[in-house]
């Protein structure tokens, strides 16, 4: 029979069984209570070995590899002198106006402990004063908080004020110099890098921070490598990097959509959590296919039919794609743009349309297009000519008056070897690791590209400018580029769309 933790928790479990094995003498023995207690202690202590053993076994399977190591009980000794008050530091993500001042101690958090251990603590649900009596139990989020990045434990109450916590004096040269309290961390999760060290390293994922999302990244890459890259692998990888879930199994039925500390989509099989900013794109009763997205935070577009995604305001392409003669990116906007017609340039009609970016780059681009067209004796103007069998060079009358640059780009270039993904940056999950998207390059066949659009939403603040006597709305947009991801066509954002309008 496979041993299990349930067996240990059973009242008729190991202690009683061990007593029976020990023989009849111990059941009659006057100190049999102590004997039973000893066997109970041994049994409880053994439970951790079962956990360890199961973890080792699970590490041999890429789907079952544990994200964290679990310690059922871990004793944390805290010296009174080590408890400190929390001082707010700049850059830690505080909200302006929350009553705190940088560099000044937070009176609400008086008891902060810095953890120092070989392995990093990742999650801590409970702190107990003891192992069996449950005199004091502190819960994460209520009685304490834990910051994984700084390995900082912030206690709401002072453990030295609670007699349930055992304590002892610390002596130095025969004198009491400090006091030490013992906190038992229960079911704590420790980052031993299981996912990274057993599977991530195979694919160069050496900088993974352990998380469920990180495991999904590894699983996506693993399955792409072992089975060959499919669309699903690429989408799974991007979703994992953004920590935005996709539907896990085919045929799930949406049962409920809840707004509670974010958006929850509840199906008959799973619960999916999204950012508060997400707009859910399914309704109750919908039957879902595996791998589909559930919100507008993540979308995938297949460009093979030349269709223009309405959600994209523009596509920018960078010098990697354009060539070394360009200073920066060129933006192809998703809006009708007048076609500029210049007759008689090098003997042929030159056409162009507006491209965003550094103006000399756009000029270089159109010069090169025309040069190549003249050299090949088939210019872009001639290709766009609306006449059948045109007898001469096209003029404005025989050319389309406007062009949608983004549609032009998709229909003439991107549709053949590219696909696109849109990620709204304000909807990233808590364990998002956008930098890992660079690994899309490793699993994507080298002859195809992925247009990764990281969309930073604009926000609007009304400002009053003196002498203008009107409110003015300023829209701010931030350019978000994927620095580590250099395979594919490019990233694009609404940067460049920023407007400054007077009301």
């Amino acid at each position, binding site marked *: 029979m496979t041993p299990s933790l349930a067996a240990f928790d059973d009242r008729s479990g190991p202690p009683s069984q061990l007593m029976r094995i020990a023989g009849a003498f111990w059941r009659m023995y006057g100190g049999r*209570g*102590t004997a039973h*207690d*000893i066997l109970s*202690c*041994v049994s*409880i*202590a053994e439970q*951790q*070995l079962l956990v*360890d*053993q199961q973890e*080792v076994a699970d590490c*041999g399977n890429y789907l079952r590899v544990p994200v964290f190591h679990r310690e059922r*009980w*871990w*004793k944390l000794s805290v010296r009174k002198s080590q408890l400190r008050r929390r001082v707010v530091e700049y850059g830690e993500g505080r909200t302006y106006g929350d009553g705190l001042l940088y560099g000044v101690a937070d009176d609400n958090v008086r008891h902060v402990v810095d953890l120092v251990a070989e392995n990093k603590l990742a999650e801590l649900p409970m702190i107990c004063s*003891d*192992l*069996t*009596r449950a005199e004091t139990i502190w819960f994460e989020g209520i009685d304490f908080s834990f910051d994984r990045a700084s390995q900082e434990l912030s206690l709401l109450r002072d453990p030295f004020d609670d007699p349930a916590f*055992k304590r002892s004096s610390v002596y130095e040269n025969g004198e009491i110099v400090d006091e030490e309290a013992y906190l038992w961390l229960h079911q704590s999760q420790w980052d031993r890098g299981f996912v990274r*060290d*057993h599977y991530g390293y*195979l*694919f160069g994922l050496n900088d993974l921070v352990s998380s469920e999302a990180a495991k999904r990244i590894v699983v996506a890459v693993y399955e*792409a*490598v*072992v*089975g*060959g*890259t499919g669309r699903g692998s690429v989408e799974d990888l991007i979703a994992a990097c953004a920590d935005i879930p996709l539907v896990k199994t085919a045929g799930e039925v949406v049962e409920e959509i809840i707004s509670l500390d974010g958006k929850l989509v509840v199906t008959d099989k799973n619960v999916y959590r999204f950012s508060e900013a997400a707009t859910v794109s399914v309704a109750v009763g919908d039957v879902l296919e595996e791998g589909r997205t559930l919100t507008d935070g993540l979308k995938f577009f297949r460009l093979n039919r030349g269709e223009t995604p309405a959600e994209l305001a523009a596509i920018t*392409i960078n010098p*990697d*794609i*354009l*060539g*070394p003669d360009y200073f920066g990116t060129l933006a192809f906007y998703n809006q009708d743009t007048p076609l500029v017609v210049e007759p008689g340039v090098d003997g042929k009609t030159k056409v162009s349309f507006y491209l965003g970016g550094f103006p000399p780059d756009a000029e270089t*681009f159109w010069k090169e*297009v025309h040069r*190549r067209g003249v050299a090949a004796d088939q210019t*872009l103007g001639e*290709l766009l000519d609306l006449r059948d069998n045109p007898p001469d060079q096209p003029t404005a009358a025989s050319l389309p008056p406007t062009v949608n640059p983004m549609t032009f*780009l998709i229909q*003439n*270039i991107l549709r*053949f*070897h*590219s696909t696109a993904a849109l990620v709204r940056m304000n909807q990233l999950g808590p364990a998002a690791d956008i930098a890992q998207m660079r690994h899309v*390059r*490793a*699993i*994507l*066949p*080298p*002859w*195809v*590209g992925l247009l990764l659009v990281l969309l930073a939403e604009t926000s609007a603040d009304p400002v009053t400018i003196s002498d203008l006597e009107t409110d003015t709305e300023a829209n701010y947009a931030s350019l978000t580029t994927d620095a580590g991801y250099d*395979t594919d*066509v490019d990233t694009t954002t609404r940067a460049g769309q920023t407007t400054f309008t007077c009301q």
Partner: protein
Amino acid sequence: MPTLRTLSTELVVQQRELMATLLNELSPNADTRSGPLHDYLVKPHGTLAAYRRTELEEMRYGLSLLLAQANPDIVSAEQVDLILGNYLLTRLPGVASTGSVVIVVTRPITVSVPAGGTFVANGRTFKAVSPFIGLPPGEVALGQFERVMTQRTDGFYSFTVEVECTENGPAGQLPKDALLVPSFPIMALLKAYAASDFSSGAATESNEQLLSRQVSGIAAKAASGRFNCTAAILNDEAFERLLAISIIGYGDAEMRRDTRALLPVQMGGRSDWYVRLTRLPTRTTAVHEASLVEKTADGFGIWQVVFTRDSYPGFYDVPKIIRKSDEGAQGTYAITSLEHGLDDSYIENELTPDLPSTIDGTFTRYQTGVLRFKDTDTATASLTVNSSKRDYLITVRHVPDIVTLQTAVGSRRFAYPGGDILIKAPVPCFVSVAFKVQGRPRADLPDEAALKAAVADYVNTTGFPGRLFAAKILEVIGNFLGSSVYVQYVDMRGEILSPDGRVVHLHSTQVLEIPDDYENMMTGRTVVFYLDPEDVVVSGLTQSQPVLL
């Protein structure tokens, strides 16, 4: 296996505390600080629990090659081989360098080389792979071991024998013309030298090398993602010792082949694979017939040789040109031009890549060349331009293996439908390294040949690093130095042969860094460092130290 002495103190204390606390809570009157419960329960159980937990942790190391490599004292080589089994891999055995040796004798007499007869060169020992008998010209060789001598242009006689290095590994790779000294008598011997570059041997595959190809074991061997493409190549026995590969594709700035249509934007659908299969490019010397194409005012002339795409696939350069009649002579005629060309005509049963521009075919099997050089020994007054021809011994550095690899990836079995994969020899950066070691009087200076081989081996296995650091070379050198020998400096020079024909010079005592030149497809992802052990210059001296006592 852990021992009680090596257990983590923190873990032992935790386990003991857990037991003691449990016991105290269940039996508050029990004394767990001393006495039998402490001595026979708390202490041994805590220690043994820590032991078993440590043992389990070490078992876990045996499931990961990364952890195994980081804990070599814990995970045995046998355990590592078990891990490899899960990845469908086996450790590649060592291979000895082999090659042909030219034996030059002064008289046409019968001479013999015994089986296993040894030669020494560059601190390595080479043995004859079988007995060989050199027969004077005119006699008839009766078996594969008998070789008839040929008379050389210098009047002496020569025949060849095959040898192999007695040790596995790349250090046994002798360059062409390297002198070998036989450790047995050969009558009338003038000299013995390597007929051509020896094959590159290989040491038994290390854990580190295994780590780099581990993923290829489980990866689908198919033209799919970059891991899969690499795995597919490694799956072929001919390429299983691939040293490095850099796959350039859609979106990479080095990809220029797909930008040559009407719109100056990458179109996708193309992939260039820069592949390093050997530590050094092959040097081949052969006789070529050159045509006189120009007479110069000094009475000599410019001669021309045309290389087809099959002459020297992926050739880099031409280090030596001499007249055939001057065989054995040092020096070379000056090259006046070496123009790259392109022959992408269809090859049966192969998918021929799209090569819209000549530069796209540089360092590929489709590269052709026109070599022009000035012969400063042959008077041309009586010769006719475009008609007169002469034979020359020309040495070329090239990468012949790219032909078989291009054939493999373009084959029906491998190529993806509609695919376009171009195999390229890496853009070369030929490096030379010079350093001086200095020691106290009577200090043992390191074995020069071994030191050169180690430095070259390091540089030649760096893959596509983009940078070559002197600090890393110092580390390699440091492994050879005794306690009283030090390195004074490391001077590194590099010559990149750009695909457009330019030579880019690098020089540093700290780091050689490959500059980015996207138009010419020259970046850290396409350039490799080549270091011939002959180009490692070591000088050493001993110097008195100040006397303090």
